[in-house]
């Protein structure tokens, strides 16, 4: 990869207590983020993408705790960080986050300019005048025209795409090392989405940030990611470069995720669909969590949790299929077709 290891989560376990019951949202999730890269985190709704991201910012909801595992960042274990004062050194300043709905991130009663300026004043210790100049610069950097006038406007005077630009501006205003984007474009139209993705890529280069990008859209992954982590039921089950994940996926769940893409469907035929629903996180999960929905599951999948198997120095997957004793099982046809198509294009170019 491009740079040194910057942030790593190791076997993180997060539990929430809900009316006396325990929900295990992360069941030993591991992930690495390297300097200068964009890592995409994909997976079904409820797989734990947002919870994982929130642990990096000390922003778990009150009923949630990290019960095991560690988060290494610059010699600190963030999983052990509990004082709000320590988090303020990191949150927003070193690691910043953009959420799905730009409206919830903005205060409707304050002007756009004030909201960003306050962040800068707080985190970068600038005075009023300096922080205003810096705000105008940042607004310009995120593609907002006429920043002087826009500075004095309120969130409701902005379109959805513009608001997301403002949220991005306030996230990058403190020049964080890591930018976490949690589905930043899901609520936007495709044309606006494409512009926001371009913006995030440009800012990443300009501010020399590493980006953790959460999405469930594999098309967006192809656009932004250098590497991909696939999550299922509270674990990362496969991780690799974007090419490895698209042309050589190994975990049955990754196959299923790719195969459900309408782009891989053949008109007039059924689309590949994953049967059933993800397992309940209230109960203990035995074996491979995806086994009950996996028509190709092996017997061992119902009994024992698969370990991590290395596929290449940059690619690993948590599936018994990679055990030398496993039978040879092919991915679904549509996944093979995607592979053929992508490889053919490589040859051409």
């Amino acid at each position, binding site marked *: 990869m491009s740079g040194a290891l910057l942030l790593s989560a190791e076997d993180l376990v997060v539990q929430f207590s809900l009316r006396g019951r325990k929900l295990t949202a992360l069941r030993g999730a591991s992930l690495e983020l390297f300097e200068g890269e964009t890592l995409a985190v994909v997976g079904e709704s409820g797989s734990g993408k947002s919870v994982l991201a929130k642990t990096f910012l000390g922003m778990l909801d009150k009923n949630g705790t990290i019960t095991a595992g560690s988060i290494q960042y610059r010699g600190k274990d963030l999983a052990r960080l509990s004082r709000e004062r320590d988090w303020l050194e990191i949150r927003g300043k070193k690691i910043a986050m953009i959420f799905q709905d730009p409206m919830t991130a903005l205060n409707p009663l304050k002007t756009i300019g004030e909201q960003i300026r306050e962040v800068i004043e707080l985190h970068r210790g600038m005075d009023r005048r300096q922080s205003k100049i810096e705000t105008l610069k940042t607004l310009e950097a995120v593609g907002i025209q006429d920043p002087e006038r826009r500075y004095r406007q309120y969130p409701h005077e902005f379109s959805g795409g513009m608001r997301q630009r403002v949220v991005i501006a306030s996230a990058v205003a403190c020049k964080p090392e890591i930018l976490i984007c949690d589905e930043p474009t899901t609520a936007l*139209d*495709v*044309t606006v989405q494409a512009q926001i993705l*371009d913006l995030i890529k440009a800012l990443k280069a300009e501010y020399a940030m590493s980006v953790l990008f959460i999405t469930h859209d594999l098309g967006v992954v192809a656009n932004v990611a250098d590497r991909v982590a696939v999550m299922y039921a509270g674990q990362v089950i496969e991780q690799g470069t*974007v090419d490895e994940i698209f042309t050589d996926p190994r975990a049955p769940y990754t196959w299923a995720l790719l195969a*459900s893409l309408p*782009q891989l469907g053949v008109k007039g035929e059924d689309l590949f*669909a994953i049967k059933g629903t993800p397992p309940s996180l209230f109960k203990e999960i035995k074996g491979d969590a995806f086994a009950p929905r996996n028509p190709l599951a092996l017997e061992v999948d119902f009994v024992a949790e698969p370990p991590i198997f290395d596929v290449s120095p940059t690619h690993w997957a948590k599936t018994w299929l990679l055990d030398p004793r496993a039978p040879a099982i092919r991915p679904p046809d549509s996944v093979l077709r995607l592979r053929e198509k*992508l490889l053919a294009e490589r040859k051409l170019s």
Partner: protein
Amino acid sequence: MKQSPLLSVKNISVDFGSGRKKFRAVSNVSFDVYESETLSLVGESGSGKTTIGRAIMRVHPISEGEIIYRGERISGDLTPKAERLVHQKIQMIFQDPMASLNERAKIDYIVSEGLYSFHLFKDEAERVAKVEQALRDVGLLPEFATRFPHEFSGGQRQRIGIARALVMEPELLVADEPISALDVSIRAQVINLLNKLKRNKSLTYLFIAHDLSVVRFISDRIAVIYRGRLVELAQSEDLFRKPLHPYTRALLTAVPTPDPEIEKKKKIIVYKPAARSPDEPAPSWIEAEPGHFVLGTEKEVNSWLKL
């Protein structure tokens, strides 16, 4: 496909507000929907897609034009008979499976609602049979009838929404973003279900959506809307192979494809409507190629065809 259309939308406009606040959400839109086809309306949020769907459902009154269903006008003032026709034969499925179901009612009541309002059953036994059949049609168990919406997953709730429409034995389904709120895997299940119902019950769909990869997979024809106006309409594959209008081209290049190589090289196009001088002719609806319509001037269309 050259029968007479099932539904004709003829030069309709829809206005919101009045006086100086008046705002034209849909402007002079026309299209036909033929029996057993899936016609999709695509465009960005606020472009007027949903408003057109609702105008057909008579939720919004139209201020100009007319809507014809099987040769009968279904817009404006209607006889009770025509009104009944619309409410039975045209059904709508909504975007948000969570919000569109009455949380306090059992599934049995939710699915029966339309049957009750139009007395579409002889006796209780027939009503129950209809509800059970509709649930089976969408792949749910009849015993689900006694349960409440919150006991179901997003995909199951969307199936309930579809069952509620199917029980009316509709001919035309207006589906407003029926899968946008669903997760990838469940999305595929619902797409397959809609396609199966279309085949088995010879349904016709007017599908409103912004996810073009889904739209391409399910549609026979696609109409593109920009700021309340139709700008292009063509067979689905023709539109993807040869988009003509600059807005359509911007829209299509913006759709992410699952191909890292292509995506990394992609140059996005930002569409800005061309400024027109007053002496230029106004754009009109031109059939540029057989079955492929586009909004533009003669000169523009010729130049787009050459691209």
